[in-house]
């Protein structure tokens, strides 16, 4: 049975970065990817805006992925595509994985695992869209695959539900390819995507954005013939009497991403219900020793640059992993935060900098974010503007403080009078 120091599951931006950095540390690395080609979802992200932070360039998603793919091909990382992890088990001192591929079944043993399994899209059923089941209802990512990978038009007259980035990007993409995008409907009262995308995907093309409205029903037998939209109340429930019928042949859903953690669950890795990803420390190790998590599997990111950063860290730490005592203290987020990551800090292994990511729960103007250690303020930062769709990154030096057994870090948020 082949053995590895680090097995990275997932060959998208997170996994690629993890494999590269793990190999740099001298580890024997296996990178497993279930698709035919590396790159993950970036293969279909032909739009630009990637790499501004990491490379100082405005690249398309494919180019961004290609950089990492070229780099990993130069290393000694063993790459196995069209390979599916069917089972994963923790043994006494390592992990055993069962891989399924065209060549057969293979069991491998690995000292550490990096879960870079990305996320999936929320479905129509999960947002309670009723009615019939015709062809022509697609999640935005699937529509993107049809158009950008297969070169096929998924629709001619489209309604988009959800103002998340994928929906906005597809609004522009479909319009440029000759489809008619009738409008983007968003159940929340504020848009979900990056401002840059609102501007360049909707406003540029005069595509209307309807806030506090949702799609409640799909109509059509063999193919979509229309949808019913309705206004929603503060609890995002449709308001009876506000229904309107819209003639269309395609409904595109961009209603959220859900981290994929089936393998994490198989291993009994503790998950955070706010992020839907694993609970981890600042080294990206989960509460299960030897299991690391990064990228969108850990929490849904907006920027591929941060995904790569987390992958790079996770891979490096997975390579350096040896079983040792951790002194984990919890990191909690007070009112106003959607979540913060990591959820734990290992005070036995503080590096020069500790990176935190967080999202505000609501749109806010001038806000002060403070970090308290056992009630005492150790960091304070003021933000002009915070939006849930725009994840924030904080780099802090946590050295030099006194950490006890019962210590805890807490992020608090205060909106200041403007």
């Amino acid at each position, binding site marked *: 049975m082949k053995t590895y120091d680090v097995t990275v599951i997932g060959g998208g931006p997170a996994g690629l970065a993890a494999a590269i950095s793990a190999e740099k540390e001298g580890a024997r690395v296996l990178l497993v990817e*279930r698709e035919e080609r590396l790159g993950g979802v970036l293969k279909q992200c032909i739009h630009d805006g990637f790499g501004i932070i990491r490379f100082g360039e405005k690249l398309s998603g494919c180019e961004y992925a290609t950089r990492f793919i070229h780099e990993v091909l130069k290393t000694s990382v063993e790459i196995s595509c*069209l390979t*599916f992890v*069917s089972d994963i088990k923790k043994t006494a001192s390592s992990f055993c994985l*069962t891989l*399924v*591929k*065209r*060549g*057969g*079944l293979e069991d491998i043993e690995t000292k550490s695992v990096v879960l870079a399994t990305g996320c*999936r*899209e929320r*479905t*129509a*059923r*999960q947002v*309670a869209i*009723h*009615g*019939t*089941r*015709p*062809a*022509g209802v*697609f*999640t935005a*990512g*699937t529509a993107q*695959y*049809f*158009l950008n*990978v*297969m*070169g*096929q*038009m*998924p*629709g*001619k007259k489209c309604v988009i539900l959800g103002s998340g980035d994928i929906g906005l990007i597809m609004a522009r993409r479909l319009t*440029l*390819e*000759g489809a008619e995008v009738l409008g983007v409907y968003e159940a929340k009262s504020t848009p979900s995507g990056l401002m840059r995308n609102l501007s360049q995907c909707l406003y540029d093309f005069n595509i209307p954005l309807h806030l506090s409205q949702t799609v*409640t*029903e799909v109509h059509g*037998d*063999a*193919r979509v013939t229309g949808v019913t939209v309705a206004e929603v109340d503060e609890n995002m429930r449709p308001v009876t009497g506000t229904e309107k019928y819209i003639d269309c042949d395609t409904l595109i859903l961009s209603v959220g991403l859900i981290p994929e953690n089936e393998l994490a*669950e198989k291993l009994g890795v503790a998950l955070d219900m706010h992020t839907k990803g694993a609970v981890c420390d600042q080294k990206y190790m989960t509460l299960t020793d030897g299991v690391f998590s990064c990228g969108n599997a850990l929490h849904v990111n907006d920027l591929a640059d941060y995904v790569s950063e987390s992958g790079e860290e996770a891979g490096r730490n997975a390579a350096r992993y040896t079983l040792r005592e951790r002194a984990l203290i919890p990191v909690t987020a007070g009112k106003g935060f959607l979540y913060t990551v990591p959820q734990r800090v290992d005070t036995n292994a503080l590096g020069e900098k500790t990176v935190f990511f967080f999202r505000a729960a609501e749109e806010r103007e001038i806000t002060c974010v403070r970090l308290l250690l056992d009630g005492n303020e150790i960091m304070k930062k003021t933000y002009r503007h915070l939006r849930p769709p725009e994840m924030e990154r904080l780099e802090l030096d946590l050295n030099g403080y006194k950490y006890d057994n019962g210590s805890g870090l807490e992020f608090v948020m205060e909106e200041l009078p403007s």
Partner: protein
Amino acid sequence: MNIEPRRKALFDAFGDAVKLEHKNGCLYLSGEVGSWDEAVRAGLLCAESGSKTHVVNDVAVRGFTPPVTKTPAFTDTAVDGKSPDVLVIGAGVVGCAIARELARWKLDVLLVEKEYDVSLHASSRNDGMVHPGIDLRPGLLKKKLNTCGNRMYTKICAELNVPFERCGQYLCFKEKRKLPALYLSRPYWLFTGSGRTKVYTYKSLQRREPHISPDIKCALEFKSAGIVCPYGLTIAFAENAVQNGVTLSLDTAVLGMEVKDGRITAVKTNRGTVHPKIVINAAGVFAGEIASMAGDRFFSIHPRRGTNAILDKKAKRNINTIYSLMGTQSKETHTKGGGVVSTADGNVLVGPDAVETPFKENFETSAESIFGTFERQRQSAPWLTQRDIITYFTGVRAATYEEDFIVEAGRSTKNIIHAAGIQSPGLTAAPAIAVRISKLAVKMLGKTGRVEKNPGFDPVRPPIVRPAALCKEDRAALIAREPDYGEILCRCEEVSRGEIIAAMHRPVPCATVDGIKRRVRPGMGRCQGGFCSPLIIKLISETLNIPEEKVRKGTQGSEPLLGPKGGPDENV
């Protein structure tokens, strides 16, 4: 049959608007009312449970025209001029089971179905329960056929290689004082055909089903209850039938019949006219229409919708078998109150509810029915949460007013046999219905010539191989023989390329996204086809050698893709 009390009840409810006539062994209702519910109520007021004097309900609804039956948009001559011994109308579980049963004889059997695949109506829209028949009154035909059918399931599912689990069903009670009655009831259940039972106190029940509501104080387990995949079984019946010589014609709708001297001489379809010796009516919600075409209308179907929700496989951690709470059954309806079922595929199914409807093919779901169902079932399963829902579906039951099955030869027309009004427990009873119908058919055909047994009949259907369910050695050997089985296309359900290609080569054609989904499951997992549907479309396109934009999701006109993105001529 006492007509006057019925006339009085109708008068009390509707005045002169509804008229009742008792003739030809039927109760004919005519007139006009204001709503569908009132029309159904008129029928229910006159019907006697289990009676062979059926209500034929022609009461019209003011200002409402019932929708026309959907039929395929094309015509051709695929079955034109055929003269089968038996024409079976309807490829639901009953029609397919009948066709398979008939294949045991040397007969030319033609099975027609108006949809693009078998099992698309009630047979794929139910909870897959094989019932012990608890709430069926002894004396009813459906009770008898349920008992027989239930007993046949182990053997039939083994022959057809369809997974079947006799997991048992718990009938739960909130009152501890019911316990002695449960013990006393056991001989009754055994005697009346519901099989062996076991009494559980809260403690012992909790050990078997740790997540059951603490409100449940005792329960009665019915050991004969089981779970099967209803469309998987229907497909298996159909495949075995075709394997044994039955001709299956899909997209074939029966549009009319010629009846001379009490005999059907011709059956018109959109794919030609056939001249069967005998006709078997297994047309589900349309059984009444078929009976009319055949000049043999002596019953009426009043369709009843039900919606089920399917929960993520993770919810399965909370349930091991089937349970429902006594008292969830509404006194107003004749359908069971639904329950919480762990399906054959490992999901949890919640539902169904029951609502009268004139729309036989309306499978729309609604938020209200999901909510209502959940609230009802939460009494025995407090862990139910709508957040676990991955999908939901609606089915329409074919109920007669007498709420019993009709499994008999025609009354006015000599060469038709009806398997009509098959609502719950239709799935359980299907094997027994098939045997009974087949006997009637052979007897009917025997009048004009000898009917011989088919010595080549093979009851075994080759299984659908599921590599992910095999042990490692078998799976490895399979992949070594055929590497396509090692390439996973659907990661939520771990379905390989090999399985999808194999499915497309099975006896019943299924090269649509949904057809493949029903056979080998890609698209049924948590991402609902988000990742795999493009791959499935590509594979169908490759296998059938058709352009990707011609690949269908299901029915005609359901192509997901509209064609390659524009060249310079496109109006960009």
